[in-house]
């Protein structure tokens, strides 16, 4: 039996369909390490832990310094109206907590919740579908251009017990709309909570979404995130993920390029220092013709950290003219750290361009000597090269304001390496 699943199921408040989903997970349990998708991220230790339902916890508002309005804030998975600032939304933009929509007669507004999750290797999506009653629901109407980034803030705050939360989000852009979203995952002090998030991202024809996600949660936190994206014709989805915190953070990024000419640019940094375990699993599907994905990921493992990357790209039959590019470079900075990387390309179409490269290495000794021969001491030279290795991901971000936010978060994480 799983203490984890039992403790999570105790908080069940859903409908019969959700009960069925929950019972499915309880029956099948968590996936064993023999299951391919979980081979490098074993759940044994987590399975023995239990978590309670979250109560409202007050947090210090200074945590939000530097995160301007409009913003929606959740603390331990509960919407915090006091910290959120949603008054100044532009015309054509709707950003609300899911809980507000659930009680109302907006059946259509919540139809994204109908998506079923059945597979035994997606337990957290199933748990989320059964248990989530909160989340951020963002809709941008067709033709709307939103300039200021919309800030989604998720704070983990210390409580008397370890708590769990399940959040389900929707980000939906109508035709030719454009917007930027920045997700912040912050720890308000030391805690060992479990966060489980499932996000649906729907980008209609010709629309553009820039999506940045900065995960700098508390060092003992456990996070499971899944993003299911769907892109229509000529839609553009650009995202940058910085995995900088938590004890265990797993993100599954699934994007379906359903419309001709749809384009995904997904870049990220996996920063596994200390005893951190970060795992990112991409599942990109080229379904329509002339679709493009560009994936640039950098992994770093120091101390006893472990960085796991799976880059799955499938080009379906008929998706001719597709272009897929995956680069995953990794830096192994200590003998006790571990990096697992696995690019997997499956191609069923004939006329495609696909390239992938994955490397694991150490800092280039010639480059280190070059820097030192100019006067930098060894620690500075190492820091400079490590920073450069990671910054490549952030340097490509077009919006200067977003780039700065990402660069600052990355620099803070890099400082940890020096004191380690």
């Amino acid at each position, binding site marked *: 039996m799983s203490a984890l699943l039992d403790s999570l199921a105790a908080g069940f408040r859903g409908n019969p369909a959700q009960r069925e989903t929950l019972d499915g997970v309880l029956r099948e349990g968590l996936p064993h390490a023999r299951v391919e998708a979980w081979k490098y991220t074993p759940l044994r230790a987590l399975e023995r832990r239990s978590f309670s339902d979250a109560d409202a916890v007050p947090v210090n508002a200074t945590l939000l310094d530097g995160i301007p309005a409009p913003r929606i804030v959740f603390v331990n998975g509960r919407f915090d109206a006091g910290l959120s600032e949603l008054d100044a939304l532009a015309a054509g933009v709707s950003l609300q907590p899911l809980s507000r929509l659930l009680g109302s007669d907006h059946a259509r507004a919540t139809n994204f919740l109908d998506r079923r999750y059945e597979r035994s290797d997606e337990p957290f999506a199933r748990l989320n579908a059964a248990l989530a009653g909160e989340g951020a629901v963002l809709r941008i109407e067709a033709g709307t251009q939103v300039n200021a980034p919309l800030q989604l803030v998720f704070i983990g705050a210390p409580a008397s017990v370890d708590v769990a939360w399940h959040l389900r989000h929707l980000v939906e852009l109508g035709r030719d709309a454009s917007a930027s979203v920045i997700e912040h995952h912050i720890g308000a002090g030391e805690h060992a909570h479990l966060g489980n998030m499932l996000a649906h991202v729907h980008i209609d024809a010709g629309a553009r979404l820039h999506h940045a996600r900065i995960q700098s949660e508390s060092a003992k936190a456990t996070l499971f995130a899944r993003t299911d994206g769907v892109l229509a014709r000529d839609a553009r989805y650009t995202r940058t993920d910085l995995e900088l915190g938590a004890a265990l953070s797993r993100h599954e990024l699934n994007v379906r390029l359903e419309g001709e000419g749809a384009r995904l640019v997904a870049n990220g940094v996996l920063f596994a220092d200390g005893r951190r375990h970060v795992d990112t699993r991409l599942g990109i599907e080229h379904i329509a013709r002339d679709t493009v994905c560009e994936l640039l990921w950098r992994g770093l493992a120091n101390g006893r950290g472990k960085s796991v990357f799976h880059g799955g790209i499938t080009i379906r039959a008929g998706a001719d003219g597709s272009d897929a590019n995956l680069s995953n470079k990794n830096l192994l900075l200590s003998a006790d750290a571990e990096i697992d990387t696995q690019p997997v390309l499956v191609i069923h179409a004939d006329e495609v361009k696909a390239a992938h490269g994955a490397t694991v290495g150490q800092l280039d000794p010639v480059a280190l*000597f*070059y820097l*030192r*021969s*100019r006067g*930098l*001491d060894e620690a500075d030279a190492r820091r400079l*090269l490590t920073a450069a*290795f990671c910054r490549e991901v952030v340097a490509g971000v077009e919006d200067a304001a977003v780039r700065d936010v990402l660069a600052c978060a990355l620099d803070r994480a890099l400082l940890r390496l020096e004191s380690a």
Partner: protein
Amino acid sequence: MLKIDNLHARVAGKDILKGISLDVQPGQVHAIMGPNGAGKSTLGNILAGRDGYEVVEGSVTFEGRDLLALAPEERAAAGVFLAFQYPVEIPGVNNTYFLRAALNAQRKARGETELDSMQFLKRVRAKLEVLDLKDELLHRGVNEGFSGGEKKRNEIFQLAVLEPKLAILDETDSGLDIDAMRAVADGVNSLRDASRSFLVITHYQRLLDYIKPDFVHVLAEGRIVESGGPELALELEAHGYSWLKDRVAPAAA
């Protein structure tokens, strides 16, 4: 200033330098010439402190200090600079940022005040003009996407900004066309003064038409087999390295 005494060194268990002695006084330009595999680059790398070289005998002192005991960055702060034969591309490390960090690290190590960005930029602008380097290169990563000539000029640019006491140029002329070589030589000549010394390592005599050495040493099979004035370089140019063989063979026997 630089005194090399009976230096023997190995790379991967193989003897490369077999007893080199050299005395470089302030303001002097010494050229080290020699065929491929003679040990020229090994000498430059050992002086700058690169890993992978094992000194088995002899000593090197720089202004009275044991140079070989110092870390590469300590040698840099003491005033030793190596212009690399193959400058390294480091994407993501900004050229200007790096150079300022390096200069200030050296100044700090010497107990001098660090330069703020205004003071630094002023210094950089002045040096850029001399070397005819494009401003735009400063904003890129270190040597990132530079042509061969740009990389070599960037080495001399760093040399100009860092103002070392001893500059070692390791085959700075290799791969350069005549214009680029002239630009490099002009850069070097503008830095010559009574206190700064140069060790110019080269395979060809060509560079020495532009950077006039005070002394020329011929290195072959790990030994200096001939030393003389600038005329020695011309002799080498005329006869090639093959006439050295007679000089090497007896010693090796």
